[in-house]
């Protein structure tokens, strides 16, 4: 990429890129996000390339590997453009046929199309698949259009237009006003108005101002920030650059989880490209604006998602939060004014500048504007990343987009907000999802994890899971968080082992109050949420464990027994083979039997049995 010295040159480069590309030329788009990788998309890509080479079609057909399209459940995903034909579960064996039939003869291969689970209808175009139809992919949709390792692709879809516009036409206070008026709230969990934060940071006195992108996506079950950084790193970087200009910063940091190697790689490539063409560095676009970005890898501590802990970690300290009597916008990194926003928040910024406040504020609810990307996972048919307008109901997300619960399972609850959030029961499935509504029902938006739970998920076990997580991840600074979460874990653990006592629920509630009131940072303050929300909506499950020593969902090991249904057992011997404790006996053609004394309730037989013959009681 050659150097871009001023806004005119940027537009010229854009025209050149667009001029060299024929929009009608067929293009094979292959999703190369983490999910599709795990399903073998690399081999599919290789096979397409080899096939094109063999048939000498490399000149006639483009091939593009993109970031995550979101529908991870059906990977590897391939979209044939310009017709937008959507093929799913593509294997290397299919590639020859796709080229011969679809690309050369314009025929559709029915076998690879998505089948509507209810109507059985075959769906040809990506936008008509129910999973995508209910979404509004204004941020995430570009993932499917660009190769994240090519800056040219991002420029071709209008990249860095917003940056060029603000540098040329707008003063920093004007940009801050736009962000304030757009109603953009922080997507990392807190939901603090971004424009107000920027303004406080800009007005804070200091020798140097910093901007930080928080990509330490620690919430288990959430991976939208990963996919954005992997699939469209330039949108995040452009947002950061606009923010830095508005705030008056010349140095930025991206703090990204070390568990996300592809994100670290792609964002590194993007930064190198920007430096090469002069969009990062000194005198950007000849406007006198200087800015550069460094990438720091996290050390695997959940608490570092908290802003003050993250800054401590950037300074090379242990990631412990500090009291925020003085906000980080006044005294943050190296005790200088620092503005921290999360990946998705930064990615919203160029869009707001390009499309305008009126357009943006038309989307969403009164106090939550725009869209939110959720990771819809757990016991749901269509798992993946979904971007929806604020104000959509949980029912629409789970049933219309998510395609409902697999098998004969029944929707029980949805967990949002990660370890700081809570479980929302079926009775509240029609609430509108936005920042305030979720908090009202005892959960929170968090970074956007949505874990669907069915009747085979035990809510006491879920509370135990989060307490176990939090007690391990507590940094140890505050006694109430360090020891409080541990005591709460012990209580809930005892309940799941059938050793719960009368009064345990009340004790848990009392401990919850202490932990949330007396801890310094949000980790401790919100730690009781998973317990309180499950007690609030699923008291009967706690009571079944405490009083009847029974786990209604059949999850808590000490409270269940396994047996084999003689009617259903075909004596295939699979369960016997996988049983690690030799608890299953049986001859050929005779239904097998589980010795409950020997059985360690590991569940291996359940996952192996094709006939649903293993019963849990």
């Amino acid at each position: 990429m050659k150097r871009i010295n001023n806004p005119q040159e940027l537009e010229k480069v854009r025209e050149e890129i667009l001029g060299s590309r024929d929009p009608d030329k067929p293009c094979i788009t292959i999703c190369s996000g983490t999910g599709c990788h795990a399903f073998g998309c690399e081999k599919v890509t290789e096979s397409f390339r080899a096939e094109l080479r063999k048939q000498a079609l490399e000149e006639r057909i483009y091939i593009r590997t993109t970031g995550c399209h979101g529908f991870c459940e059906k990977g590897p995903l391939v979209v044939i453009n310009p017709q937008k034909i959507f093929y799913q579960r593509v294997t290397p064996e299919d590639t020859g046929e796709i080229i011969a039939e679809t690309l050369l003869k314009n025929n559709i291969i029915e076998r690879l199309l998505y089948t509507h689970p209810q109507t059985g209808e075959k769906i040809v175009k990506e936008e008509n698949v129910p999973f995508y139809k209910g979404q509004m992919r204004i941020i995430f949709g570009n993932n499917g259009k660009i190769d994240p390792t090519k800056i040219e692709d991002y420029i071709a879809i209008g990249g860095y237009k917003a940056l060029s516009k603000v540098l040329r036409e707008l003063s920093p206070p004007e940009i801050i006003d736009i962000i304030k008026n757009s109603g953009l709230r922080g997507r990392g969990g807190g939901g603090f108005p971004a424009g107000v934060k920027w303004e406080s940071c800009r007005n804070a006195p200091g020798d140097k101002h910093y901007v930080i992108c928080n990509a330490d996506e620690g919430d288990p079950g959430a991976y939208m920030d990963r996919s954005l950084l992997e699939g469209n790193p330039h949108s995040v970087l452009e947002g950061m650059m606009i923010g830095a200009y508005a705030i008056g910063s010349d140095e930025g940091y991206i703090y990204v989880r070390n568990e996300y190697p592809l994100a670290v790689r792609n964002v590194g490539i993007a930064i190198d490209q920007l430096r090469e063409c002069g969009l990062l560095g000194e005198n950007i676009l000849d406007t006198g604006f200087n800015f550069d970005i460094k990438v720091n890898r996290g050390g695997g501590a959940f608490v570092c998602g908290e802003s003050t802990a993250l800054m401590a970690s950037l300074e090379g300290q242990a990631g412990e939060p500090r009291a925020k009597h003085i906000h980080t916008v006044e005294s943050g990194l190296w005790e200088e004014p620092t503005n921290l926003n999360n990946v998705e928040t930064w990615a919203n910024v160029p869009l707001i500048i390009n499309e305008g406040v009126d357009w943006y504020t038309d989307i969403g609810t009164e106090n939550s504007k725009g869209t939110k990307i959720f990771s819809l996972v757990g016991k749901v048919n269509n798992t993946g990343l979904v971007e929806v307008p604020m104000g959509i109901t949980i029912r629409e997300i789970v049933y219309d987009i998510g395609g409902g619960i697999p098998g004969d399972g029944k929707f029980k609850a949805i967990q949002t907000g990660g370890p700081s959030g809570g479980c929302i029961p079926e009775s509240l499935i029609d609430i509108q999802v936005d920042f305030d509504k979720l908090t009202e029902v005892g959960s929170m938006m968090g970074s956007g994890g949505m874990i669907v739970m069915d009747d085979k998920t035990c809510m006491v076990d879920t509370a135990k899971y989060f307490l176990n997580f939090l007690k391990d991840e507590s940094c140890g600074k505050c006694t109430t968080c360090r020891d409080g979460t541990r005591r709460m874990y012990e209580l809930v653990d005892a309940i799941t082992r059938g050793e719960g006592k009368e009064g345990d629920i009340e004790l848990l509630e009392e401990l919850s109050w202490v932990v949330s009131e007396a801890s310094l940072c949000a980790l401790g303050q919100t730690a009781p949420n998973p317990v309180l929300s499950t007690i609030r909506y699923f008291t009967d499950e706690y009571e079944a464990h405490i009083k009847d020593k029974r786990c209604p969902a059949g999850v808590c090991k000490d409270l269940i027994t396994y047996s084999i249904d003689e009617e259903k057992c075909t004596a295939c011997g699979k369960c016997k083979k996988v049983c690690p404790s030799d608890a299953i006996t049986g001859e050929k053609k005779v239904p097998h039997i589980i010795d409950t004394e020997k059985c360690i309730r590991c569940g291996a037989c359940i996952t192996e049995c094709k006939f649903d013959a293993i019963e849990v009681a």
Partner: protein
Amino acid sequence: MGPKAIDRILKKYDYEHSSIIGVLQDLQDEENYLPEKDLEHISERLSMPLARIYRIATFYNTFSLTPRGKQLINVCLGTACHVRGAARVLDRLKMYLGIDVGEMTKDRLFSLQTVNCVGACALGPIVVIGNEYHGQITPGKVESTIKKYRKKPRKSATKSPRHKKLKIEN
């Protein structure tokens, strides 16, 4: 690691104290753990108290002060994996390998670890071995998955296991 190699890492970070986490990450990437003598050397070269280096090395989950097996087995215990039975997979791994989380097998081939979330939630439960992701693992698949790694040299996967996998080159 020799003093020269350590100086190479320190130089990459301009001998800055604030980059200590990055320095330790690079050291561990090469050595598979943080050897005591290397930490002492870093302390000397940076004029940084050894106690501070140990504070960092013990605070962050990434770091290990003891040698780890040739293959690192990371079981994802994220919420999505949990509701799909990750705990059972972990139990089965512990039993099969005969070690607890944080331990190494006697033949020094495998170390067992857990991770809070690897961000591939749609494919849970996930087990990451080396740099390959194995999605939709069940307790029944544990044995066959591990066996594939018995003869494999570290970091270079030659034969692909039966199910889905992902390799990310850094």
